[in-house]
C-alpha cells in the first residue's frame, strides 16, 4: 500500500471535539474511516487517531461568511438544514436590514448541498445569478443582502479556528 506523507500541520493531534462532530455528521461513515485509518497507519508513523482526523476531515463543507464591517467567519455544515435570515431564530442569523427574516436555507439532499431562496424580498444569488434553488459546488459565491458567503469544502480543522 502506498504510504501517504502528511504535512506537519495535519499530524498534530486534533483532540476529541473534531471526532465527536464527525461522528454526528451524516457525511462521514465513521467505521469506514476508522478502518482506512488503521490500514494506512500500518504503513506510516502516524497514529490511527491522527490518521482518522486526517481522513475524515477531508472535504468538510463550510460557509465562509463575509459581513460588512465584521471579521470573516466560518460556519461548518453538518448535513442538517441551516436557515439563514435576519431573525435570531435562524440557525445562521445575519442581522442586516436588506436580509429577509427567513431569507434562504441550505439543505443536504441526495448527497448534495443545495441552497434555496425562501421567497426573500431581495433575492439569493449564486455567482451573481438570482436563484430559486441551486446545487452548491466548491467555491460558489453566495450573496444574501449585503452579506457574501463562499461555499467551500475545507478541512474541519480550519473550520474550528
Amino acid at each position, binding site marked *: 500500500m502506498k504510504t501517504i506523507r502528511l504535512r506537519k500541520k495535519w499530524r498534530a493531534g486534533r483532540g476529541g471535539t473534531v471526532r465527536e462532530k464527525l461522528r454526528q455528521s451524516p457525511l462521514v461513515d465513521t467505521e469506514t474511516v476508522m478502518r482506512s485509518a488503521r490500514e494506512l497507519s500500518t504503513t506510516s508513523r502516524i497514529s490511527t487517531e491522527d490518521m482518522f482526523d486526517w481522513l475524515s476531515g477531508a472535504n468538510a463543507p463550510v460557509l465562509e461568511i463575509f459581513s460588512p464591517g465584521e471579521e470573516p467567519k466560518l460556519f461548518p455544515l453538518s448535513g442538517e438544514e441551516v436557515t439563514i435570515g435576519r431573525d435570531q431564530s435562524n440557525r445562521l442569523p445575519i442581522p442586516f436590514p436588506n436580509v429577509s427574516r427567513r431569507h434562504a436555507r441550505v439543505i443536504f439532499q441526495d448527497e*448534495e448541498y443545495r441552497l434555496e431562496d425562501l421567497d426573500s424580498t431581495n433575492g439569493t444569488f*449564486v455567482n*451573481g445569478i*438570482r436563484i*430559486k434553488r*441551486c446545487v452548491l*459546488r466548491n467555491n460558489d459565491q453566495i450573496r444574501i443582502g449585503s452579506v457574501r458567503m463562499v461555499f467551500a469544502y475545507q478541512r474541519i480543522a480550519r473550520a474550528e479556528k
Partner: protein
Amino acid sequence: MSAHSSNEQLLVTFWGTRGSISTPGARTQKYGGNTPCVSVEYGNTSVILDAGTGIRNLGIELAQHKGESLSLHLLLSHTHWDHIQGLPFFMPAYRRGTRIAIYGSSKKKTFLASVLRKQMDVNYFPVDMSAMAADLSINEISSPAFRIGRLKVVCQEQVCHPGGSVRYRLHAGRKRIVYATDVELDAFMGRGKTSPSERRLARDYLSFIRGADLLIGDGQYSESEYPTRIGWGHSSMPVLIEAACRAKVRKLAIFHHDPQHTDSILDRLWDQYARRYKNTHPKTAIFLAREGMTLAL
C-alpha cells in the same frame, strides 16, 4: 421540479446543460455533465424541454410524488441523441396514470413516433417502448402556436443545424422564455453575413427572442474554436451574446456546453466574455447554464 408548484411563480430548472454527449466526472461537476433537459413550471402546468440524459434526474424527482397524477408535456427541439437519449430512463413514463404528451417537428422525413420507438429497438435498448405504461401521446406540431395549460407555446423551425431543429417560446402571463438550442448563429449572424437570406434568418431569430425574460441559447464554442467547427450546427458564445444583447434579452443562459469544456475552461471563457460585455450591455444578465440550478422569473 415539484408535481405542482404551489404558487404562480415561473420556475425554470436546468437538468442537463451539456451538448453532444454526456460528460460525467469531477472536471464537469460544476456546470454538469448531462445532456439537454430543462423544466418549466407555471402553476400546475409542467413543460419539459428536451429529453437528454438530464431528464433521468427529473424523472427520479417526479417519481417521489407518489399518488399524484402527473400531466407532463415534453417539447423536443429535435431528435439527435443528446436530446432524446434520456427518455428511456424517464421513470414517470413507466408509471400507469401519468400522462405525457411529446411534441416535435412535423418537417422530418420520418415520423417522430417512429424515431422515438426506434431508439428503444432491442438492438439499442433492452426495453421496448410498449413497456411505457404512461398514457403517451406523440404529436408532430401542426401549428406555430398552441397552448399547454396556462402556457402559450410559439415555435419556429431552425435551419442552421444538420437535420434542423425547433426553437420554442413559452409565454407565461407577461413573462417569456425562449429555448433556442442547436442552431449555428454564426452561419447567418457572424461577421460578413449580409446576404438577403442571411439577413432574413437573423431578423427571424432576433424577432423570436426579442425582449425575452430568459433566453436559453446555444453557445457551444469559443470564438477561437468556431472556425474549425463551421457547419457543425452550433454557435460561438460571442455571436450568441451579441444577438441576445441586440434583442434586449433580460437573462441569457449560455447552453449546450461543449463536451471538451471542463469547469475550469468554462470559468475561464466566462471570465473573458463577462469582462467584454459587462460595460457595453449591462442590461442583459449573462451566465452559463448550470445543472441543478432553478431560476424564478
